[in-house]
């Protein structure tokens, strides 16, 4: 993490390339963390999942010493990475399901349907063109596992605005995903 700190400092000092280096380093870390969290116990699933993102921040203590202006940017970068990891993971799982030789018959635990991560990802891509800020809110909420208050802070919006954005986005995405994706 030391080298991450160094790159973050460079980045703060105006070295754009540094951000890419940070991203590469953090990405490795995120993958590792995600690996742990994705095999969490079911009763703790929610907490574990949320812990992941928090842990990323905890593991970057240098963030505290970094200029606050850079922090939202950094978090949004981390969230984008999270999104990439989760989408990859969902894709891999889907592939495994199609190949019975790999994992055999997979019994689902519980009957509740789950949203298809890949479908949300694609719908979100379309939404970015029309409602970029809303797409950001969704990204932070759905892939970054942030609550509204945190999102408001990161995007420098009022809590009410974030909640309105969310309601609109949810309707927009639900409409966009109607039919085949559920």
């Amino acid at each position, binding site marked *: 993490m030391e080298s991450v700190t160094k790159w973050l400092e460079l980045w703060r000092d105006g070295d754009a390339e540094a951000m890419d280096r940070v991203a590469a380093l953090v990405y490795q870390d995120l993958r590792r963390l995600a690996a*742990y969290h994705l095999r969490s*116990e079911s009763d703790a699933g929610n*907490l574990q999942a*949320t812990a992941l993102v928090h842990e990323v921040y905890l593991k970057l203590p240098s963030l505290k010493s970094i200029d606050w202006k850079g922090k939202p940017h950094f978090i949004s970068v981390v969230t984008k990475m999270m999104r990439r990891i989760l989408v990859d993971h969902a894709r891999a799982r889907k592939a495994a399901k199609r190949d019975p030789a790999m994992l055999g018959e997979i019994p*689902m*635990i519980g009957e509740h349907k789950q949203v298809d991560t890949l479908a949300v990802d694609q719908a979100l891509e379309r939404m970015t063109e029309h409602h970029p800020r809303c797409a950001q809110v969704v990204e932070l909420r759905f892939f970054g596992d942030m609550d509204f208050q945190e999102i408001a802070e990161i995007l420098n919006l009022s809590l009410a605005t974030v909640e309105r954005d969310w309601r*609109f986005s949810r*309707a927009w995405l639900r409409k966009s995903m*109607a039919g085949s994706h559920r």
Partner: protein
Amino acid sequence: MSEDRLRELFDQVSQLAREEREQFLISACGHESALMEELRELLAADAVATDEKFLQHSAIHIQAVEGQSGESAIGETVGNYRLVELIGQGGMGSVYRAVRIDAEFEMSVAVKLMSAVFLSADIIAHFRVERQILASLEHPNIARLLDGGTRADGLPYLIMEYVEGIAPGEYCRRHNLSIDQRLILFRQICSAVHYAHQNMVIHRDLKPANILITSDGTPKLLDFGIAKVLSRDPGRADAALTEPGMLKMTVRYSSPEQVRGEPVTTASDIYSLGVVLYELLTEHSPYGDTDRPLHQIMAAICDEEPLRPSSWVPRLKGDVDNIVLRALRKAPLERYASVDQFSEDILRCHDGRPVHARGHAPLYLAAKFVRRNRVIVAAAALLLCSMIGGLIEVTLARARAERRFNQVRQLAHSVLFDYADAIDRLPGSTPVRARLVKDALTYLDNLSKEADTPQLRREIVDAYVRVSNVQGNEYQNNLGDTAGAMSSAGKAASAAEELLKVDRTPPALASAADAFSTYGDLFYSSGNLSAAGPAYQRAIGLRQKIAAQSPQNIENSLALSSSLRHLGDLYGGVGLQNLGKTAESLAYYQNAKTIVAAASEQFPGNTEVAKERYETLLSLSSAEIGMGKHEEAARDLGDALTQVQKVSAAEPGDTNVKVELANAESRYGQMLLDDRDAGRAIQHLALAAGVLEKLGEADPGNAVYRRGQSIVEAQWAAALRGAGQTSAGVTHNELSLRLAVALSHDAPASAQYRTDVGIAERKLSEALLAAGDAAGALHQAEQAGLILCQSEQHPTDPYTLANCGRSLVSAGNAHLAMHDADRAVIAYRKAEEIASQRSQADPQNAIFRSDWARSQAALAGGLAALGDSRAARDLYQQALNNWSILRQAKSLTGQDAHRSDDSALALAKLAPKP
């Protein structure tokens, strides 16, 4: 169609009640039918999304839940077991009930299959090592790890005791357990955790899901240490630094340090147990609503004081509140020192005894923690220690790689100084310090190779001094490793020489002085008396230079006084090996007394000054006794005892003060004994022995306590004998000898400890003789002579020589009691030779003169038994002359006065018949 307008209208219309929406759409959209259609669809989607709880869970949650579904392995074999039933989905994969393939009866085990996804090779390798440790945990309340291995596909599995049971909360509700019954259940859980801690295993993931209560009410803990197996990733250098223990931890039961990603210790388990107990008693979480968002729960764990348990269940007000909240303190050091202590407090509460947790205001300083916690479990402390060791190791490795020298230095410094200081006065801390020393030496040796600034050189000097003191400075609590201490002190002294070449500022002079005085201490305690003096003089010279520059420097005054005192010990310290120059010794002590008296006027309330003052007074009074200055001695010793008693009352947890209290009581008792006031002497000596025994029990590895107790037991024995309780006296002499032998055995390099054994044997000899066992007395006296009289080759050590003489007198007494006057006279004659040499070399030393007189009187008695009345008369007369000199110098003790009277009587009987 403008997206902005769409958005604006959606926000407005979605706020309206359903029946008002249509009207709003018509008036707002007018003829824009596409916009209106879009809005209608969005409103429909909004309604569906709400119904479906669409996007209520985040992607990672969804995938985590999906991840629960693994392949079913029912029917497969793992090791010698066949999987028969899926019983759960654990953190690592699936858990199956399984039965032995080859067994005639079906005994179930639980088999954990680790999941393939994302398991790195590092983790699998580490898993194998940890498995061995976990398999060794054998406790009725811990689900046993029976076996483990690797399946054909390379994935590890664990075979564990199969436990059928329910969660504790559920069990309590179902059986409607009372508060007391719940506490009893919880104490069983504690006993399992305590056992694991003693075996160096931290659970790290204590929570109700990991505790099952079987149908007969026995709690069983699952997954001990598994969290560590999973969270350790040895491939990463900083893994140990950050301990990603919260990875698998259910946050609700995590300690603040786990939430912050800080190192996990036994105190973290204590915290989690606290949460479990809180929930068992109140059926609520200490942090309120469990549905709070995670970041709030995390923040609450770190910052929020939990509600008192009694705010849910009023009956818990008082001790239970205090006990639970003590376990839930934010700072690990403020919690119970061990699970055992936690459990003990619950028992005390149950029995209606006062609990430890009561009435302690939050104390945030480690030093205060030390004072408050009287008992620390060595195992727990060692764990803490190994954690620090790990920190040093890892940081060193990183620092070498990154050349980040200052950070290591800082870490090393704070570990060695702050931490070692904090635990120095804690009973039972010796093993911890031993471990600290080992780690500290490793990095110091590395660090000193790269020392290139005066500042760093100074730190290295300080560090070696500290290590040496912990290893074996007899003036402080130590590990009894004299040889190791000597080596460290030597390194400190050479580093100090290097330092003085480049830096002569007061801090550098002070560090160097410390190094030299420590070196002096070590020379002294290893018997190299001639080398000790120059080292002390060097330290004193440097200290005086500092004092000339800054006379107000209180630390320097104290160090100067202390060095002068040690030099006094070296020249003529009573009860210590010394150079036999009592007059010089007295002068050094008086010099020290003057300096510390000035400091005391300057800082009247300062405890450190008070301590140095009573130590000086104690040494001075002993020297005064040696010089026969009984009035001065009685005054100084009385002053010293009063001072120690005061400091001890003010700081009841300070073990060093306790040692001094024992010391002062013992010396005061000895003074009373010398004045033949055995009754009062017994009171003081029993008190001293009691204090030392308690200290020794709390910290069995501590040499100072054992040595002190050995000496005091012998004094106590003599007092008992003086009071006519002969057989009780023998018992205490025997205990004294046992303690001395054990000490010498553990530290064979120490001449002092070896001499102690000889003295204890000699005193036992006297006791046996008084009890009528002459043969036993002879044996012990000869044993004593073997040790004490070997030192004749070292003429610089008059104290051991004097003891050699005394052991010869004891042997002679035994021979005489067995009517072997010839051998008695041979022994007495040798004793008299030694004593006369000693006394003539140091004529002002009252003790040596007293020895001489006693050996002369003894020899006279032997000669009289042989029938040589003339020679006997001469010697009695010489003895009486010596006692008379002592009387004139006001140095005659009550016992000697008594002996003198006896001799006069014997002489009268031997008077030539007219």
